[in-house]
């Protein structure tokens, strides 16, 4: 399995593998290392590929099943690659009454993926959030660190086009 990780190493950069080994060396033999190692690995790869999880399990002597359990428990960990642009569509109360659901639908139709998913070209990930604290601009979404407010469904293609 370790050979496989060396070969594919998810993202293809040999550099990543060296960083992962360095991370694992740092935490070798430390109690409770699993979560910090997973956090570090996700910083390197952007998400936690299956091969990386298997490799970590082998190095830390933890069953893959147990790592999978931990990864799926915490909101911070991702098992699938995430898009370069993260779209956070607000579904809070203020946005809800001003048509937040229609905005989400327009984005989903435009990108042809459902909320929570990533486009096959890894350009976009759609997420929904409970409130981003910009209720005065409702309905609102964030793309990376940019806030887009007072949205209407017909403005969506143009806004997404800027990031494509």
């Amino acid at each position: 399995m370790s050979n496989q990780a060396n070969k594919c190493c998810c993202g293809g950069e040999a550099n990543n593998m060296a960083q992962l080994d360095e991370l694992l060396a740092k935490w070798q033999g430390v109690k409770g290392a699993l979560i910090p190692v997973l956090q570090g690995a996700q910083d390197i790869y952007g998400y936690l590929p299956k091969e990386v999880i298997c490799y970590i399990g082998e190095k830390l002597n933890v069953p893959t099943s147990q790592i999978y359990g931990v990864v799926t428990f915490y909101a911070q960990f991702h098992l699938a690659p995430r898009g370069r642009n993260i779209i956070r569509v607000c579904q809070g109360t203020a946005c809800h009454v001003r048509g937040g659901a229609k905005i989400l639908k327009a984005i989903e139709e435009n990108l042809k993926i459902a909320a929570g998913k990533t486009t096959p070209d890894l350009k976009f990930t759609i997420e929904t959030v409970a409130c981003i604290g910009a209720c005065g601009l409702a309905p609102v979404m964030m793309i990376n660190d940019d806030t887009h407010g007072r949205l209407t469904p017909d403005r969506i293609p143009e806004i997404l086009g800027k990031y494509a």
Partner: protein
Amino acid sequence: MTDVNKTYESVPLYNDLSFFKKQQRLVLANCGFMDPEVIEEYIIRGGYEALAIALTKMSPADVVEEVKKSGLRGRGGGGFATGMKWSFAAKSPGPKKYVVCNADEGDPGAFMDRSVLEGDPHKLLEGMAICGYAIGADEGYIYCRAEYPLAIKRLKLAIKQAEDMGFLGDNLFGTNFSFHLKIKEGAGAFVCGEETALMASIEGKRGMPRPRPPFPAISGLWGKPTNINNVETFANVPTIITKGADWYAAIGTEKSKGTKVFALTGKVNNTGLVEVPMGITMKEVIFEVGGGIPNGKKFKGAQIGGPSGGCIPESLINNPIDYDSLIQAGAMMGSGGLVVMDEDTCMVDLARFFLTFTQAESCGKCTPCREGTKRMLEILNRITEGKGKAGDIALLEDLAKNIKATALCGLGQTAPNPVLSTLRYFRHEYEAHINEKRCPAGACGALASFSITEACKGCSLCKKVCPVNAISGEAKALHAINKDVCIKCGACVEKCPFKAIIKG
């Protein structure tokens, strides 16, 4: 150039401002008054004096006794006597014990611990070191949520500075007491604020709670005796040691000593962190410290204690804020969120909001919490959508009582509180939703209905802004809304210059 002979307009003293007048800042004493990244500033303000006193002039048993005498109770929610908790861990056989700080502040709308971590990190380290000495632990962990990057950065820096200065490390103050601190970053799970779940998470496992006993004082982190307190609790300890338990116990009420920090938010003029002596009334906090309700609206209630807490109605506004009075009123101190609500807030919708949160954060280990909160949420959803049925209130109450009695941990046991307390004080709102399909506060979108009054001048602005063309009417004539087409977005209400469109 300053003219010494000229009289300038005076700047009001802190204590002349109504926001500060009734506050007593012990935990937040240094926040905002010093550079938290410079250890010398903390020392000049009396920092690490308490640790020196404890280590050189007191025995560990003396420290436990002093904390017991102070009457300090856990500030994380439960309100368990801190000195008592320490004495259990102190009695457990060593040699290896741990001190853990719960800095996994996750309640929506609460940021008390964050301000201590970011504004006065050394106070926490000092409190933890004193605890380590008292219970005989040489190692501690601070479990801080990863969403607080500045707090983590400042804690790391503070630990490094304290180690360099000899306030953390081996043989502190020339004694044989050693204490080392480590930071653990959370990975995003609300339930990790529960102590047994938090320890599982530090150990690198899924952060799920386990039954108690054994309590952490007997078998905690890696099976060793562990004392776990939250940030605010530890931050009270240095003051107790330097000023003495008697001084501290003089603040507050008979059974709730000292001060409490609240995150005051919602429909109130002065929002922010407030630290007030226990026993102060809700009315003083909201109307004097908070400066009352904006826009001349009427006070309806206050939600205290976040998703685990409850609603205090106007009739109880003169009750003192302390652990036991709040429990009696069906709320709880919780970590310290205090959300003020005016007449526009729908209590059913509020209960639904908090339950949505706890339901999503339920770890799924025990059935009452996993299944019970889901069923309760389904009922609340249908009530707010105008599909409530006769018997729904009784069913909600039945479920709530069962979940409270049987859930494994604090998250589940307190999750029904927002529903139970709103049912207790605002039952008529539930009944209006179910029986009359009406939301008295006009907040539940599905039950809202808009109509145009005689005040309409026929300007047609509403007609233009309506996204679904539900409004009709000739120019300069009274307009009307077609309720079958209206999607209740409220855009017309905001656009109307004559306030002619009403909701309800």
